[in-house]
């Protein structure tokens, strides 16, 4: 059943589904395989999870049966992994398990399983479930495929839709295009139509039947037809019958052969029935689909034809007329020929008679046509010669000399062949009339011809000097005309010359008259022309006067115009400039001499004209008696003339003309020229004045501009450069320079026209070079030619500089430099240049001065700025309204405001806090009034802290007006701090001083104690010694007392009265004796006594002598000798000795006590240190004695003390300190003397001083150390012996007493003197 069902579900064509069975139990596998295989499933079996995964992934079964309980990998894991794999995730998995719990099933299904079959399973159930799931799977797959197809379909359609839309849009575009094309076509058609309609031609289309199919609208105009009148008609219907055959022929030909038919003329019937000649063309366009016929173009040429016909008719008419006229002319010609023949006949007749007349006519013709020069005199003379059959013919012309003398000169000559010419003969020139023959003169004067048949009649042999006349001579003159013609014919001597001669003469006379006439005419013509030229020239000059005031132009024009008036070779205009006449304009050689100066002091010919104010004409410069020698001009010049250039009565120059021809100029010329010159003078003068005015204006203008330019800059270098730059505007120069002083030199600072390396060139001011002279004299210096100047120093050998000028640059009355210019032209500079240059220099000086001042001011400004910037004092400059104008760095530092913060603000608002404002404002008011403020006050910083300042406000006063205020704030904070520090320091110093003083006191004391320490040994000795003596004496006394108390009474009882008397006398002597002997003396006394006693033959001499001396009894012992001779003597002596000794011991004790007390007192005095620091009244002598006492032990042997004490009053002093002084001095003295010598102690009063002098006779202090002995720690003693402070302290103590100490030392005498003032 199920199989059937399956067959139904699954298409038979498809193979049975593959099933993968996974179970670890082989039996189950086998069972399942057995169940499923019969149903046609392809069953794969695997027994573990890993193999199952591999199998599933490679085979992709349609369904999987999966056991759950498997070793290693259980079914869940297998399921999980299969589901996780993309390839196998869709394969339905049916779990087969023995686990039948609901939870197991839920877990299995949640893992992705589709079903769950519990073991043991029913085969039918297995199959049914498998079928179910497979079918579900199939359905699912199919649906997926269908979905995929649908999706693809949709994609495809979308693409198609898009393509359609694209197609649509391109179609639309195409349609638009086509519309456009159509429109274009319409337009084109309309145009063509219009063309057709408006054409002067008729355009028609004929079909094959020669029927009109189209006719252009122009038909109406051309042929009178409307289109419809013609369309449909045959062309032949309207063609002139005569033309029909050819038209037919042509059209047929065209129809058959195609192509074009060139123009064909035929007649076409107009609508008004007239025939019109038309010109037609045809084009076969049968094959053209549009036209499909013959296109005929027809043009009406009727009018043209008509015109041609008329022309032809006129031509015919003309031909006819010409023919008629020709005939008539032929007739006239015939008549004329006849007439000519007749005339020829007459001519021949007359010819002979008129031959001479012809010559005359020819002469006249020549002369009449002779407007050109030179006149054809030679041709005329030739004709004359032929008439006269002469060998020569001469023509002389009369003329006036410049002096008014009548002269004649040969002008032309004709000679027959073989005859030599005389034209160049100077003798035939300027022949004075008074040298002429009277006949000749007569001829001239009467103006009639003469024939001299015999020249011998001439008184002087020949009418013309040097010309040999030997034949017939015709002298022909015209009266009133200064012309002479003469001729001579050698072959025609007197006789036979009759009518012909007269006839010839008449002809010649006529000819000469013609010449005279010609000359007169020519002269008149010349004159007229000259007058005209003169008028023109004068007018021209006048025009120039009006038009131009430029001198050069005027001079050029004058020359130009003059040339028209007078013939000359050279011309020059000389104008007065200063003391010279200067060639100012000229032609040719004069032109090259422009600028040449002729001093008025010379005797030059032009100068003469200038001075005489009259024209001067010189016929020949070579021969002129006055000027031939002095003439310095062109040697070729012969004729010369000069006219003064006058304005009123003033001469401004001369106009000179010259010629290479002798006598070229006449007075007449001069007169003409004078008129001209007058005009020219005015023009020149005006031009000069104008030029001068212009120049002055130009210069003034330039100077003004220069001033502006020069003062436009304040930079010195720029100014210097500009000076040079501007200089060229006012004066010409080749090089220029500005020199400024530097030390003892002038230094070239700026310039032009020379190599730049010359800048810095120095001219010593101590030299006499022109530059130095200009500077020192403060005057301009002009050098016309440097090569002539004695002070000029040539720079380089070929220096082209010739003229030089220097002017001082003056500032007030002081020269600040010089300005120099130079030129390559000699004498280039004059008064005018000086004035200009001085004016310029004054401007330049101002500019330089300004620039220097500016530089100085700028330097000063910079200095002030630097000072302000570097000043440690805060400085503010204030405007008068108390606003801050500047604020230096120290101010920024002091107040904490930057300059930018405070500029323009009110100073009081910036630095005075509210409570200080009132005071600050009051200061400000005082400052504004120009008062100076100096105050110690307080101001406020930006951060609010107050600062102690010393304020100094100084008004800046310019021209008695306060213009600004300098406010200086001196920060006192540091000073106050410094003051405080100083005060503390002072305190410290005072304290230190105190300490030092204490130290010093201690030092002095310790020095004293040190000195004492040195004495201690002696002191102990000094005290112990008397103590020892005292003790011993006491012992002695006590012993002696005991003994004498026992012995004395007994002894006295034994003694006689006499003996007792002697005994007491002895005692008395002993008591009275002064123990004044030294031990040594006592020994001598003892020895002496011994001898004495021995002389008395006494016993116990030794003992007695000893005792007696000790008792002090050694003089005059005779009274005691008897006693000593007694047997009891020893006992007596013993008692006496003991008794005496008791007294001696008592004295000893007394002495010792005194001595000890003295020492103790001295010690006490010495060591005394008065801490009160107050002086006490003391006796200097006592202090000296104290010290001497202390030193007693050291002084008593070997030192002799000399005390020179003068009584002195007690003084207020520090006695213990003075002790120390004496101690030191005495100690030093003893040491110097090595404790042997003389110590002199002097005490005295000198004026108000008490003087103590301690002098020893030691070796003295070496000079070189005397200076140093008072220095602290200076000592000459071995280490340990002295502190080196002794004398230093001595001096300090003496100073303390306002005294002084002096030392003088030489070997054997060294004295220390201490001066202590009494009060």
């Amino acid at each position, binding site marked *: 059943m199920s199989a059937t069902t399956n067959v139904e579900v699954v298409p038979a064509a498809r193979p049975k589904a593959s099933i993968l069975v996974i179970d670890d139990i082989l039996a189950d596998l086998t069972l399942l395989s057995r169940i499923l295989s019969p149903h046609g499933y392809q069953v794969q079996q695997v027994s573990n999870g890993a193999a199952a995964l591999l199998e599933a992934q490679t085979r992709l079964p349609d369904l999987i049966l999966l056991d759950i309980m498997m070793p290693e990998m259980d079914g869940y894991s297998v399921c999980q992994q299969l589901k996780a794999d993309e390839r196998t995730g869709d394969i339905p998995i049916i779990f087969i398990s023995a686990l039948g719990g609901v939870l197991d099933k839920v877990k299995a299904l949640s893992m992705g399983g589709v079903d769950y079959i519990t073991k043991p399973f029913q085969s039918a159930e297995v199959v049914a479930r498998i079928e179910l799931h497979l079918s579900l799977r199939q359905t699912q797959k199919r649906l997926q495929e269908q979905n995929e197809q649908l999706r693809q379909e949709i994609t495809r359609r979308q693409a198609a839709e898009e393509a359609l839309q694209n197609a649509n849009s391109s179609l639309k575009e195409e349609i638009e295009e086509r519309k456009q094309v159509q429109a274009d076509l319409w337009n084109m058609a309309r145009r063509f139509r219009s063309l057709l309609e408006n054409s002067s031609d008729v355009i028609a289309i004929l079909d094959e039947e020669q029927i009109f199919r189209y006719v252009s609208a122009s038909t109406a105009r051309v042929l009178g037809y409307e289109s419809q009148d013609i369309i449909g008609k045959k062309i032949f219907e309207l063609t002139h019958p005569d033309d029909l055959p050819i038209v037919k022929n042509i059209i047929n030909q065209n129809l058959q052969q195609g192509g074009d038919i060139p123009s064909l003329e035929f007649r076409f019937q107009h609508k008004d029935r007239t025939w019109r000649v038309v010109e037609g063309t045809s084009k076969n366009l049968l094959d053209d689909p549009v036209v499909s016929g013959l296109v005929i173009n027809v043009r009406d040429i009727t009018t043209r034809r008509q015109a041609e016909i008329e022309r032809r008719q006129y031509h015919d008419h003309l031909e006819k007329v010409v023919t008629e006229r020709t005939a008539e002319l032929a007739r006239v010609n015939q008549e004329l020929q006849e007439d000519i023949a007749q005339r020829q006949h007459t001519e021949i007749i007359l010819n002979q008679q008129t031959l001479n007349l012809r010559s005359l006519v020819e002469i006249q013709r020549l002369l009449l046509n002779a407007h050109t020069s030179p006149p054809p005199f030679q041709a005329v003379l030739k004709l004359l010669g032929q008439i006269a059959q002469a060998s020569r013919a001469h023509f002389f012309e009369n003329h006036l000399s410049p002096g008014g003398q009548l002269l004649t000169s040969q002008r032309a000559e004709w000679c027959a062949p073989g005859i030599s010419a005389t034209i160049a003969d100077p003798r035939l020139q300027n022949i004075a009339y008074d040298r002429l023959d009277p006949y000749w003169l007569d001829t001239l004067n009467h103006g009639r011809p003469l024939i001299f048949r015999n020249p011998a009649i001439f008184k002087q042999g020949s009418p013309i000097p040097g010309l040999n006349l030997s034949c017939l001579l015709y002298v022909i003159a015209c009266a009133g005309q200064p012309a002479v013609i003469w001729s001579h014919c050698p072959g025609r001597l007197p006789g036979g010359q009759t009518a012909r001669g007269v006839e010839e003469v008449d002809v010649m006379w006529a000819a000469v008259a013609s010449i005279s006439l010609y000359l007169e005419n020519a002269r008149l013509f010349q004159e007229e022309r000259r007058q005209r030229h003169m008028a023109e020239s004068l007018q021209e000059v006048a025009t120039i006067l009006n038009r131009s005031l430029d001198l050069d132009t005027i001079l050029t024009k004058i020359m130009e115009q003059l040339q028209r008036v007078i013939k000359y070779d050279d011309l020059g205009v000389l104008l007065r400039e200063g003391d010279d006449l200067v060639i100012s304009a000229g032609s040719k050689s004069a032109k090259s001499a422009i600028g040449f100066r002729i001093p008025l002091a010379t005797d030059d010919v032009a100068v003469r004209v200038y001075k005489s104010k009259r024209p001067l004409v010189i016929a020949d410069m070579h021969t002129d008696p006055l000027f031939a020698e002095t003439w310095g001009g062109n040697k070729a010049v012969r004729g010369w003339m000069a006219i003064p250039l006058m304005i009123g009565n003033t001469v401004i120059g001369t106009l000179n003309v010259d010629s290479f021809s002798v006598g070229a100029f006449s007075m007449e010329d001069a007169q003409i020229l004078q008129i001209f010159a007058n005009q020219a003078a005015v023009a020149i003068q005006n031009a000069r004045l104008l030029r001068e005015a212009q120049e002055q204006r130009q210069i003034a203008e330039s100077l003004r501009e220069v001033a502006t330019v020069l003062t436009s800059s304040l930079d010195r270098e720029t100014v210097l450069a500009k000076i040079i730059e501007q200089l060229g505007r006012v004066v010409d120069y080749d090089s220029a320079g500005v020199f400024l002083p530097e030390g003892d030199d002038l230094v070239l600072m700026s310039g032009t026209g020379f190599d730049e390396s010359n800048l810095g060139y120095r001219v010593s001011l101590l030299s006499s070079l022109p530059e130095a002279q200009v500077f020192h004299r403060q005057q301009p210096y002009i050098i016309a030619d440097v090569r002539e100047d004695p002070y000029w120093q040539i720079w380089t050998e070929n220096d082209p500089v010739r003229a030089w000028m220097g002017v001082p640059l003056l500032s007030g009355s002081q020269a600040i430099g010089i300005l120099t210019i130079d030129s390559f032209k000699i004498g280039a500079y004059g008064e005018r240049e000086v004035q200009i240059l001085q004016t310029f220099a004054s401007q330049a000086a101002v500019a330089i001065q300004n620039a220097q001042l500016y530089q100085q001011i700028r330097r000063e400004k910079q200095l002030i700025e630097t000072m302000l910037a570097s000043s440690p004092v805060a400085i503010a400059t204030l405007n008068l309204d108390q606003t801050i104008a500047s604020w230096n760095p120290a101010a920024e530092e002091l107040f904490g405001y930057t300059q930018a913060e405070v500029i323009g603000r009110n100073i009081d608002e910036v630095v005075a806090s509210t409570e200080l404002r009132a005071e600050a404002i009051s200061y400000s008011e005082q400052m504004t009034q120009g008062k100076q403020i100096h105050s110690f006050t307080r101001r406020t910083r930006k951060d609010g802290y107050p600062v102690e300042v010393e304020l100094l406000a100084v008004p800046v006063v310019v021209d008695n007006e306060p213009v600004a205020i300098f406010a200086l704030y001196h920060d006192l904070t540091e000073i106050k701090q410094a003051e405080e520090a100083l005060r503390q320091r002072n305190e410290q110093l005072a304290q230190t001083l105190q300490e030092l003083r204490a130290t010093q006191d201690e030092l002095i004391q310790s020095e004293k104690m040190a000195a004492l320490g040195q004495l201690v040994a002696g002191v102990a000795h*000094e005290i112990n010694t008397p103590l020892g003596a005292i003790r011993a004496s006491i012992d002695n006394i006590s012993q002696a007392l005991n003994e004498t108390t026992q012995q004395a009474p007994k002894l006295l009882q034994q003694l006689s009265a006499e003996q007792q008397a002697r005994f007491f006398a002895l005692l008395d002597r002993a008591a009275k004796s002064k123990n004044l002997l030294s031990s040594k003396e006592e020994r001598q006394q003892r020895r002496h006594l011994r001898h004495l006693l021995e002389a008395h033959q006494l016993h116990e001499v030794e003992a007695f002598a000893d005792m007696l001396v000790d008792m002090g009894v050694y003089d005059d012992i005779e009274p005691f000798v008897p006693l000593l001779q007694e047997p009891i003597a020893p006992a007596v002596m013993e008692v006496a000795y003991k008794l005496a000794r008791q007294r001696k011991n008592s004295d*000893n004790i007394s002495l010792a006590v005194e001595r000890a007390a003295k020492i103790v007192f001295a010690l006490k005095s010495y060591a005394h240190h008065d801490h009160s620091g107050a002086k006490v009244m003391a006796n200097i002598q006592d202090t000296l004695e104290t010290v001497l006492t202390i030193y007693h032990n050291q002084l008593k042997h070997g030192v002799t003390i000399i005390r020179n004490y003068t009584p002195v009053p007690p003084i207020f002093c520090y006695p213990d300190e003075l002790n120390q002084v004496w101690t030191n001095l005495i100690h030093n003295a003893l040491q110097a003397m090595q404790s042997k010598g003389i110590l002199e102690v002097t005490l005295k009063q000198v004026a108000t001083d008490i003087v103590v002098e301690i002098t020893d006779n030691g070796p003295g202090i070496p000079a070189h150390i005397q200076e140093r002995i008072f220095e602290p720690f200076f000592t000459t003693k071995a280490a340990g012996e002295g502190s080196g402070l002794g004398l230093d302290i001595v001096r300090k103590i003496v100073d303390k007493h306002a005294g002084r100490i002096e030392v003088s030392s030489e070997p054997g005498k060294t004295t220390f003197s201490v001066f202590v003032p009494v009060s």
Partner: protein
Amino acid sequence: MSKKVILCVDDEKTVLDSLKEQLKSYFGQKYTIELAENAEDAWEIIEELAATETRILVIVSDWLMPGMRGDEFLIKVYQTFPTITTILLTGQADTEAVKRAKTDAKLHRYLSKPWRASELVEAITSALG
């Protein structure tokens, strides 16, 4: 022949006088007491005594004296007369000097002033043996 001598050297006369009296009372019977105020005088006496072949047994000398000091003097004495017993009797003496005297002068005793008679006598007696 002559009595033997005890020589006392001291720059202070009072000391010498009292010393002489003292020594005389103890040793006056057997010895002569000679006095000198300085080393120079003492040396003179010594030489004089030597010339008379008078033996000096003891010299009692002060230390601090003008001229030659006591130790120097005693050393000099010892160098010439080594048998003379030397005793320093002084108010003050430099310890170095005393030491020097002990070694170089075989100083018998050093006695300080003021001295007791007994100690002086003992010193001399002990020297005299």
